């Protein structure tokens, strides 16, 4: 009943969820990775920038003035301090705001000196063949009566801070990775857990006999309760439809058997010796019986066709006026000497009412209604089609009225059922059932009533 789970299924819920989770994790992971990277860069910079700044401060501390001008007692410890980053090279320059180098590397790169800025400046610049992180600090030194800004710029290659940054990043990523793997693992576990009740249902369905259409016994979790309810509802309908089908087959078999045995009987009778007039009469009634059998078969096929189309045919716009016109034309074509007087009334003078439907089925329904009149009503029956819109405008009525004998009140309730034919011997008992089936397929209704002229009034109501 059910294929191997996962083998021919169009997709796996588990794989989907896992994929969704992984995508989510990956997304979060990449966002976090970016954040982590920025953090690592900032953290590495912060710690090593402090070192650089400490170095600069130490150097600035030794910048002073005496009678000869600015003096620098360069503190080697300032560079020693930077030696904490073992493999990094260091550079420094002490210079005036005018750009005069007091000591150190005169060619250190850096932005224009801004005298007003006494903030510590950090920047990266290429020097000596590599990227160097620089700090620049300023100090005001007083000489005689004036003051002079002195700047110190200390630089350090980025090896240690890059190592530090990478270590921070990798450590963070490792934690995130472990979290992600654990997350996915738990997600899979919970998916399995969540899907467990489904497998119980699968087992239940798989172990069933094809004819077993009882409700599923599973006590489903809330999330899939509606699914189970839907399955159970479907099973009930399937059960009902199966019963219907069985009844229908039984009905059909009975009808055809009856009809054929009658035909057989007539033919046997016809083959017995008798007077020529008697034989003629017998053959005549055998012919009539054959006609009835053909009519019955036709109607059975029509009914089957209507049911089949209801399931399979896509609907298109159908103009009701055209529908009625064609029905009349078809009838006249088929029964050139028909005695029916047709009449058409439109209560709605505006546009032709158009419904969404299957023209073939609808035509079949009208054909049956017209045939009924032909069969049941009198010599020159009058058949009136009326098209009318409901007051609210959301329904369209196609009313078919005749002036025949109609259907007695007591029998109307069953008139729409199969093989409920009464009276005339040529009726198959399927005509109204076919109409009913067509209307069901169009979400419409059939209502039987009394016609204005005492006949039968069939009201077809369509949504629009």
């Amino acid at each position, binding site marked *: 009943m059910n294929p191997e789970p996962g083998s021919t299924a169009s997709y796996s819920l588990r794989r989907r969820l896992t994929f969704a989770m992984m995508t989510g994790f990956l997304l979060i992971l990449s966002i976090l990775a970016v954040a982590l990277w920025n953090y690592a860069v900032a953290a590495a910079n912060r710690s090593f920038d402090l070192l650089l700044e400490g170095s600069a401060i130490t150097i600035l501390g030794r910048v002073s003035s005496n009678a000869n001008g600015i003096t*620098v007692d360069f503190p080697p410890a300032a560079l020693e301090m930077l030696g904490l980053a073992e493999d990094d090279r260091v550079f420094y320059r002490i210079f005036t705001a005018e750009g005069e180098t007091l000591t150190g590397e005169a060619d250190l790169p850096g932005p224009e000196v801004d005298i007003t800025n006494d903030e510590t400046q950090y920047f990266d610049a290429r020097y000596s063949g590599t990227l160097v992180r620089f700090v620049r600090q300023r100090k005001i030194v007083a000489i005689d009566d004036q003051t002079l800004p002195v700047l110190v710029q200390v630089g350090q290659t980025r090896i240690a801070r890059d190592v530090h940054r990478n270590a921070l990043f990798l450590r963070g990523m490792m934690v995130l990775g472990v979290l992600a793997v654990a997350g996915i693992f738990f997600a899979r576990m919970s998916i399995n857990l969540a899907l467990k009740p489904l497998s119980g249902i699968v087992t239940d369905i798989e172990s069933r006999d094809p004819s077993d259409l009882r409700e599923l016994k599973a006590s489903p979790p809330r999330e899939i309760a509606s699914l189970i309810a839907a399955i159970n509802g479907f099973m009930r309908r399937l059960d009902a439809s199966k019963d219907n089908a069985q009844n229908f087959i039984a009905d059909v078999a009975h009808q055809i058997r009856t009809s054929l045995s009658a035909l057989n009987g007539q033919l046997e009778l016809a083959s017995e010796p008798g007077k020529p007039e008697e034989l003629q009469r017998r053959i005549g009634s055998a012919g009539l019986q054959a006609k009835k059998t053909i009519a019955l078969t036709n109607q059975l096929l029509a009914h089957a066709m209507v049911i089949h189309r209801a399931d399979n045919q896509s609907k298109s716009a159908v103009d009701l006026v055209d529908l009625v016109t064609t029905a009349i034309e078809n009838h006249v074509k088929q029964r050139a000497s028909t005695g029916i007087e047709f009449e058409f009334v439109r209560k709605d003078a505006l546009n032709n009412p158009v419904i969404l439907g299957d023209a073939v089925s609808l035509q079949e329904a009208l054909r049956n209604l017209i045939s009924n009149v032909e069969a049941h009503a009198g010599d020159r029956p009058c058949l009136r089609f009326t098209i009318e819109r409901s007051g609210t405008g959301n329904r369209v009525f196609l009313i078919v009225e005749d002036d025949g004998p109609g259907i007695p009140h007591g029998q109307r309730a069953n008139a729409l059922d199969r093989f409920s034919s009464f009276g005339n011997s040529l009726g198959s008992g399927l005509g109204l059932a076919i109409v009913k089936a067509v209307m069901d397929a169009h979400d419409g209704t059939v209502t039987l009533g009394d016609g204005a002229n005492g006949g039968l009034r069939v009201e077809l109501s369509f949504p629009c």
Partner: protein
Amino acid sequence: MLSVDRFPTVVFIAALFSAIATGLPAKAGSGQLNIYSATDTSAMQQVLDAFQAKYPEVRLVYTEYNTRELHEALLGGTISDADIVISSSVDLQVDLVNRGMANSIDVKMDPAIPRWAQWRSELFGFTFEPVVTVYNKKAFETFEFPATRSALALAIRDNPEFFENATGTYDIALSGVGYLFAAQDMEKGYQFWRLVESFGRAGAETFCCTSHVLDKVAKGELLVGYNVIGSYAAERMRLDPRLAIAAFTDYTLVMSRSAFVHRSAPNPDTAELFIEYLLSREGQRKITQSSALISILEAVEGKSERMTIFGNLEAMRPIKFSPGLIGYLDRLKRAQLLADWQDALGSNGME
């Protein structure tokens, strides 16, 4: 300049051909290797010979310089074909490396080589040389040689006649190593300046090189030589019983000769091979056993015997290879230090 080429010309031509054939640079273990060194050739000769024996296809060209001259020549671009740069002035070496002049090399390094004697996988120390004081053994027969710098300063103050014109040390303006030792001394504390002032009062003499100091002390022309390279002193003492060595107990500096591969070395693979050999057990053993120099490795055969002469191993303070050394090379700092030194030593200190 002195070119050491002990190789037969035939082989040299063969090596040249092979270099042409294979294209430049030569493959490891062949071609010409230019070594620029601020270390006595005599001290290096044995280890160079050993390397040559191991790699006969290499043509070694060894050029000797003074430490400061070498530094300036390299900075100024006078030398353009250096493969290997060796110097005993580690501060100058660190400066060159800091300027990006060295190649980072991936050598199979003995883990016993101490961290302080290397920097950035570029600069490698390959000797262990305490900085000591030598004295004339005979002159100090009567009283014990002072164990610390303070004690020596006190002794000079208390016995001015005895020490008058009898002390000598590096001319730190002239000698790169001398300047390095002085800078390191200064960093260690105030005793140094007291000592220098004592030297000044006693009319100390200054020299360019350790050997000159050793000569004078041995002859008795000087009684005390301060801050001389221990390895040379020990070697000399072994041959000359008039000399004695004192390693101060307050601290004894230890220097290491260092080498690096020049960034634009014409023959980098062979240069790397040379460094590797220098640091290998084999190279280190050669250094310890056949030259005045002492191995950087603790466990090399013969080192401990060589070290006994210094006694007092606890007070050894190696000069760490680090950018801090550059601080003393600062133009103003150096000028200041030299000025202070002159002040303290007095004009009579200058020859």
